[in-house]
């Protein structure tokens, strides 16, 4: 049990690539910290520095009371679960799990006790004599977990441990790993590129991009108050709609103009985001999560000035809900570096081009109730929950919150 502290930790490779720059992060004792970000954001490098598999270029890394920059992996008292599981193919499941204990010259009885205990926790009892190649993906993953937990280390490091499992098993193992970590109470750093994993598993989530830490917060805060467009777009599925809008004032209250349409803002919005006042008359980027949109007839209490009108382009019925893609005339999708990178990460081939449908406006995605009456090609009226709108500076991509612009976490 120990805390893990990154203090301005950087990693620069010999060819000058900065994989991680000035990472400062405190992982509390017993905390489940998830590092998340698109590929190449430095999250795995950060983890490997904790493991001692990468040298630390500058800064200090502490595990417990000890600065471990120059401590070899084997003396760091950590255990790691690899994406590939990295099981020893010539050893049985029992010997795989016992490997780290045998290295430590632990007594036979103690090894046996711990291995059997771990096997019981993970449901591996009947597989102890098997070789890894005779196991399924999920069982291999459990063996890798078992190898980590018998060591009773100061911290667990997990490098995308679930990404090689199929979707169903991944959901199951996600819950198992979370429960296991909670039961053991061992400090855990978990790397993933999957925001759902990050949100469901982490006590806190650290979002990284291009080697920099953007935001560390508990999942709800991350969802409610993303520090910038990138975090806003990365967290949540389907991704947040991001369109250009203008802040205006009517009858003393603030509102945003989306194309020719008008969205009235609540008093609460202004009081929780006093900085928004300074943007009056300027163009900002408005973030609307698909789940804050609803077909108007299913939300009759929403006043007319909190509705958007558009044309339905595509309707995807999921049974429990309806994903509706619709265009709003006269609007433009935000197209900043952040948005492009997010689109690239999502695998969109045309990241350079905004998702304009027919040149008439931005394409938005709404997550409507299953009973919503929408038809493709027909107009739709969409109620907007204006209490949960997100506002970002059009130039810096920073979220607009407090009156004083925050310095911390700015990506320059």
């Amino acid at each position, binding site marked *: 049990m120990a805390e893990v502290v990154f203090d301005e930790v950087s990693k620069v490779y010999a060819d000058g690539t900065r994989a991680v720059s000035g990472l400062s992060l405190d992982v509390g004792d017993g905390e489940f910290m998830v590092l998340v970000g698109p590929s190449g954001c430095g999250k795995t490098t950060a983890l490997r520095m904790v*493991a*001692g*598999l990468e040298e630390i270029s500058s800064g200090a890394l502490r595990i417990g009371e000890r600065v471990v920059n120059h401590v*070899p*992996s*084997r*003396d*760091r008292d*950590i*255990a*790691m679960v*690899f*994406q*590939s*599981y*990295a*099981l*020893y*193919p*010539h050893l049985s499941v029992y010997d795989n799990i016992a*490997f*780290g204990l045998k*290295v*430590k010259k632990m007594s036979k009885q103690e090894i046996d006790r711990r291995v059997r205990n771990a096997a019981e926790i993970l449901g591996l009892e009947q597989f102890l004599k098997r*070789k*890894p*190649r*005779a*196991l399924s993906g999920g069982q*291999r993953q459990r063996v890798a977990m078992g*190898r980590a937990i018998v*060591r009773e280390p100061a911290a667990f490091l997990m490098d995308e441990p679930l990404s*090689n499992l199929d979707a169903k098993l991944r959901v199951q193992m996600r819950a198992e790993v979370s429960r296991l970590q909670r039961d053991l109470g061992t400090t855990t750093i978990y790397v993933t590129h999957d925001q759902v994993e990050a949100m469901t598993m982490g006590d806190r989530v650290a979002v990284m991009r291009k080697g920099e830490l953007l935001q560390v917060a508990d999942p709800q805060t991350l969802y409610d108050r993303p520090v910038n467009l990138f975090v806003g777009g990365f967290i949540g599925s389907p991704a947040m709609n991001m369109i250009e809008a203008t802040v205006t004032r009517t009858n003393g209250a603030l509102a945003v103009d989306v194309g020719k349409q008008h969205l009235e803002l609540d008093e609460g919005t202004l009081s929780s985001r006093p900085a928004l006042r300074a943007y009056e008359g300027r163009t900002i980027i408005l973030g609307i999560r698909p789940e804050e949109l609803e077909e108007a007839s299913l939300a009759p209490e929403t006043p007319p000035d909190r509705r958007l009108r558009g044309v339905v382009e595509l309707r995807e019925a999921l049974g429990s809900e309806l994903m509706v893609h619709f265009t709003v005339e006269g609007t433009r999708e935000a197209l900043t570096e952040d948005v492009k990178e997010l689109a690239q990460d999502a695998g969109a081939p045309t990241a350079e081009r905004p998702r304009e449908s027919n040149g008439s406006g931005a394409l938005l995605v709404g997550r409507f109730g299953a009973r919503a009456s929408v038809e493709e090609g027909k107009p739709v009226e969409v109620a907007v929950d204006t209490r949960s709108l997100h506002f970002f500076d059009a130039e810096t991509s920073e979220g607009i919150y407090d009156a004083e612009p925050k310095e911390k976490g700015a990506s320059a």
Partner: protein
Amino acid sequence: MAAAATETAQFSGQRDTTAARILRALAKTPLQILLAAIGLLWLVPTIGLFITSILPQSSVTSLGWWKIFAHPSLATFSNYSHLFHNAGLTGALKTTAYISVGNTLIVVIVGALAGYAFAWLEFPGRDWLFIGVVGLLVVPLQMALIPMFRLYNTLGIGGTTLSVVLFHAAFGLPFAIFLLRNFFVGIPKDILESARIDGANELWIFLRLILPLGLPAIASVAIFQFLWTWNDLIVSLTFSVTPITVWIFDQLRQFSSSIDVIAPASFISLIVPLAVFFAFQRYFVQGLLAGSVK
């Protein structure tokens, strides 16, 4: 949809008729016959040698080999029993064993250690040094015979079994290091990193992971090196050591007609490497790494 499914069924049905299977088998048969013929052709000298070795010396020259099938057969193992009471031969066999086993051990141990270092340890000049090792692969050993002969005499180990062992080891190592390094590099890096995090030091990793995982490659190196040095003539001849190859060669020179000694001795010399090959063959298993990652 239904029509398409029927079509597919018919199509696959046609492919698996008995006639089609016979045709497929026939298509492969010429190749198999050819391979079998080549195999038999290669076996002819060995069979001839064996038959010669079990015929009495008097019959070899005067009668045909088919006499061993006559009644009563002329076949006899007296040649062999005489040979095993010949101190010259047993001594030569022992020398051969010392040389081939000794140098194979050195090559395997040093080669595996060096291969691991070249594959997985960071040290300055590693890649240049490895290029140097690869370069040594092309040095012909004949070039070193005379200089080494003089060096051995200066050191006072000229004419000893040890001198031949060392010579073979030196010339076997570049290939062994090259082969083992390339095999070890293919061992998933995650496994070694995982072991390091689990607390293992380099020696432990070498003994508990690299050696068992590298067994197929190590076995190949050992077999190659053993066969090569078992059959060596020129090196031992130069350093005046008498393993079985040199001993047989000496028989040939002294009594040109001593076929009753040469044939069985040659056969013994041949059968041992063959046995070794078949004994170690099971280590050439594929897929030892299966199930480790992903």
